[in-house]
């Protein structure tokens, strides 16, 4: 491949970057091992199909095909078949909740570097509380966002719309990703107890992160654990502990700054 790479005159200084990247190819041993596992996986899939097809009488095959179509969306989430919770049930919780509360804990190099409480409701409103640092309230229905910086006791009200800067952490993109997750969710064999409840884990393979979502027998998500960085050298672990549809304070999504906070223009940093 290297020989076929066009000479990079049109790349300017980026050519050096491309050369560095191309000069660090995958290890042959890794490529060979991946190739072996690929061929084994294809053969395994072929055998399973062949054996299931041969054993099914023709009249049942048609019915099975119809049922298969109906169950198509659930198939990737039921490895090994059998009963128990399906990942689709777990996903449903993230789609249909009235309120979701999550405590997010981030650990780096074995030490806890932050804890943040997340509150969301079915209308898309979100509240983030990062201890003594800040509180964000985002209300897409009202089209406004409130930012409270607790250190300086300042408040900022921002209209939501094109061009408005919603902080990355306030967008809850991970929630959208779980709702839309179409990849492989492998159910783990291990059973654990969390908060006195029996939970099963689903390993989600997406985005290079090793994520495990733990849920009760009826599909209620309890904990999501995400290992950041490379599998070999994880940079940290993020854990979210969930609670669904519990009562919340009536003013949890209030966009009015507390009386003791000073409203500033142009953002808290401008103060």
């Amino acid at each position, binding site marked *: *491949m290297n*020989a*076929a*790479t*066009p000479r*990079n005159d*049109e*790349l*300017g*200084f*980026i050519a050096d*970057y*491309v050369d*560095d*990247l*191309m000069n*660090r*190819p*995958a*290890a042959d041993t*890794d*490529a*060979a091992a*991946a*190739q072996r*596992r*690929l*061929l084994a*996986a*294809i*053969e395994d*899939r*072929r055998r399973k199909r*062949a054996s299931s097809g041969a054993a099914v009488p*023709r009249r049942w*095959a*048609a019915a099975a*095909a*119809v049922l298969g*179509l109906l169950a198509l969306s659930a198939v990737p989430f039921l490895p090994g078949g059998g009963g128990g919770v399906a990942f689709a049930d777990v996903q449903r919780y993230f789609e249909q909740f009235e309120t979701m509360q999550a405590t997010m804990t981030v650990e*780096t*190099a074995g030490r806890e*570097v932050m804890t*943040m409480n997340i509150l969301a409701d079915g209308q898309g409103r979100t509240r983030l509380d990062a201890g003594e640092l800040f509180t964000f309230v985002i209300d897409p229905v009202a089209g406004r966002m409130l930012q409270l910086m607790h250190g300086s006791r300042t408040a900022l009200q921002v209209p939501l719309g094109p061009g408005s800067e919603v*902080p*990355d*952490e306030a967008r809850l*993109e*991970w929630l959208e*990703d779980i709702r839309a997750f179409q990849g492989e969710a492998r159910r783990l064999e291990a059973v654990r107890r969390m908060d006195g409840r029996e939970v099963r884990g689903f390993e989600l*393979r*997406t*985005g*290079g*992160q090793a994520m495990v979502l733990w849920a009760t027998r009826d599909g209620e998500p309890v904990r999501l654990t995400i290992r*950041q960085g*490379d*599998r070999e050298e994880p*940079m940290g672990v*993020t854990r979210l502990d969930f609670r669904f549809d519990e009562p919340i304070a009536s003013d949890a999504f209030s966009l009015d700054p507390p009386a003791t906070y000073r409203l500033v223009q142009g953002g808290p940093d401008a103060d």
Partner: protein
Amino acid sequence: MHPQPTPLETWAMEPTDQNPSVAELARAHGRRVYHAAYRVLGDAALAEDVQQNIFLGLLEKPRGDVQSWPAYLAVAATRAAVDELRRRHRWSRLTPAWLEHLRDTSDPPETLAMHEDRALALRGALSRIRAREATCFALRYFQGMELADIARTLGLTENHVSVTLHRAVKSLGAQLKDPQTNIEETES
């Protein structure tokens, strides 16, 4: 509902005069797909995920309209790898941006050295530009494909590919040049 496999499903499992089986394709092109994905991702495990997804995906959704399997697979691997790269970047946002500096200060020296690596910087920049630009760039400069082949396989005109590549180089240049400029300004 017809209980028998469709011709395409049959093709996926068994070779015909016109088409190889997926197993034959994997034997012939599996490593190339792996390497194509690795160049974009720089991660053996992720490259293997892409490789498996592509060939096992062909078992589930057979393709009977492929003119050139090497080109098709190179594009499929690159596209999937770029998607993975972008998704990876997206998931990293789960950790608030203001925490990143805390991480940087606690990184061991070898990790800091890795952050300075240009290959890593290029992959990072690729994850931030438009997906189509990143795909065209990787196909052209990582996989060494000709403009005409990229255009044919992506269903674009050569001119469109050329413009997209030009934009990709410009976007990557901006992404990669800024940190360098800042360092020079700080040092002077």
